[in-house]
């Protein structure tokens, strides 16, 4: 893989470890609000200090600890949304591509287009607003808007792979459709999905931040990068770093996933190998 891809992998690995061991790493409980110390003004409390490396927010919570714990939400959303939507996408895409005919017309001719015609974030907002904000509903909503991309990709791949002679050979042997798809078609069709999935994780992290920013993500007091941005918005003038630090966390994560995606694309494509 190229250098940027490796760099991305390292960043993601670090974020994963941080998310996994957040309670051990974080210096404070991210939910605990504290009073200002005697003689300490609001403005002073925002500022980074020795005790609070990235400062405290309006409610006196440690920003560093909140960012560290926020990684948990982002990583969970990234991984779960991609897993669920890829699973749905592969299933529907494979059925649509393998059987063709009216099944394909129904799925790719109708269903895919209906889903793609919605502005995806708007649909997610509507769903979360309807179901009520929670981590589970957020993941559900993002998965429901996310699967179409995977389904289209897999359908196209299946259409290509099913014409290979080894698939015909399997049919000549009397292999069942399920086995043909699982044993012969999917293993040869899934490769581009890996790239799509790593880019999809970036998208999911970003969508989670957007929804949380709008107050439709993970409900407080659970820390999430998007809700931190939202909470810090009124103090943009006095304490811009309250926005900047979680912003950097989102940016780094999304960038890292994109680097990995591009790196994988290049790495898996023999034509691009130098």
């Amino acid at each position, binding site marked *: 893989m190229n250098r940027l891809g490796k760099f991305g992998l390292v960043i993601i690995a670090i974020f994963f470890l941080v998310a996994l061991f957040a309670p051990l790493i974080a210096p404070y409980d991210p939910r605990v609000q504290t009073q200002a110390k005697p003689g300490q003004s609001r403005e002073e409390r925002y500022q980074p200090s020795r005790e609070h490396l990235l400062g405290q927010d309006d409610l006196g919570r440690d920003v560093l600890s909140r960012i560290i714990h926020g990684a948990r939400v982002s990583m969970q959303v990234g991984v779960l949304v991609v897993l669920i939507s890829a699973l749905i996408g592969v299933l529907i895409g494979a059925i649509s591509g393998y059987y063709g005919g009216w099944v394909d017309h129904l799925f790719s001719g109708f269903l895919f287009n209906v889903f793609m015609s919605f502005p995806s974030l708007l649909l997610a907002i509507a769903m979360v607003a309807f179901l009520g904000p929670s981590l589970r509903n957020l993941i559900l909503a993002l998965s429901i808007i996310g699967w179409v991309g995977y389904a289209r990709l897999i359908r196209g791949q299946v259409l290509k792979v099913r014409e*290979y*002679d080894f698939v015909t*050979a399997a049919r*000549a*042997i*009397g292999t069942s459709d399920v086995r043909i798809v699982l*044993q*012969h078609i999917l*293993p040869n069709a899934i490769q581009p999905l890996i790239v799509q999935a790593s880019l999809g994780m970036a998208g999911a992290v970003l969508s989670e931040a957007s929804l949380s920013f709008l107050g439709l993500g993970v409900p407080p007091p659970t820390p999430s990068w998007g809700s931190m941005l939202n909470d810090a918005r009124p103090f943009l003038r006095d304490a811009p770093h309250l926005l900047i630090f979680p912003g950097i966390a989102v940016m780094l994560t999304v960038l890292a996933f994109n680097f990995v995606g591009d790196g994988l694309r290049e790495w898996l494509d023999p034509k691009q190998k130098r």
Partner: protein
Amino acid sequence: MQAQALVEIKNLTKHFPAAHGQVVRAVDGVSFNIQKGETFGLVGESGCGKTTVGRCLLRLIEPTNGEIRFDGQDLLQLGKGEMRALRRRLQIVFQDPYSSLNPRMKVGDIIGEPLVVHSIGNKQERKDRVADLLKVVKLDPDYANRYPHQFSGGQRQRIGIARALALNPDFIVADEPVSALDVSVQAQVVNLLQDLQEQFGLTYLFISHGLAVVEHISTRVGVMYLGKLVELAPAVELYQTPKHPYTQALLASIPLPDPEQTRDRARIALGGEVPTPLNPPSGCRFHTRCPYAMEKCKITEPEFKEVAPGHFAACFLNE
């Protein structure tokens, strides 16, 4: 002799739907029988429908019309389960040794898959059978643990043959099994197929685009042009006394190692391209390229009839 035919094909027709409501007449009323133990060579240019005939025989493509009998059973009437059971007796070897093997499966799993699918034997028995099959096609049994990309075209073709043999079939459609191979390797694979035929009493439908390869292996040969059979005869007879101008042209196109020899042969060089099967020519389909075409060839279609014992041709010249 006719009663014992292993495969009987009657009026086989396959039309593929094409754009704008047109149909591609890939196979248009083909009838022939294949006797048990023989090798039936099916020859024709690209696009003449020979591969479609082979695939229809195994019901990998559903024919539009016609009748296919295998060992007396009407294949097209069989239900899904019955057809699946019968697949053990009908197998296929493909032209392209690269796309015919799943690149993500080990050779042993590829050859053993028919056994798994039909639940034959346990793990160890299947492993032994795969090793035997590799030996039968003259490959090292240790190759079972390798992946297809580690092999040459000829070796891959042997792996494909081993897979086809796994279920002890009676009948194998060999769809241009050597066309993609080097000339030096072609002979090896053809010889292997012949050895296997003797050893296991196989019947072949051997599809090829040239008459040269088919000559060695075939008992009888059928020549197809644009979805129709134009000539059918015992191999020796077809090569010595071809009755259809198209067969004569195909024979003339075989390169000979000795340039002196070519002069003894009738020289027919065909001009032009094969007409589109979307809209085949009227009358005799070959009249657009036939050097002997007469007025009536454009209007009436010549009957496919016996011109000598066991020798059929569809041409007015033989009347």
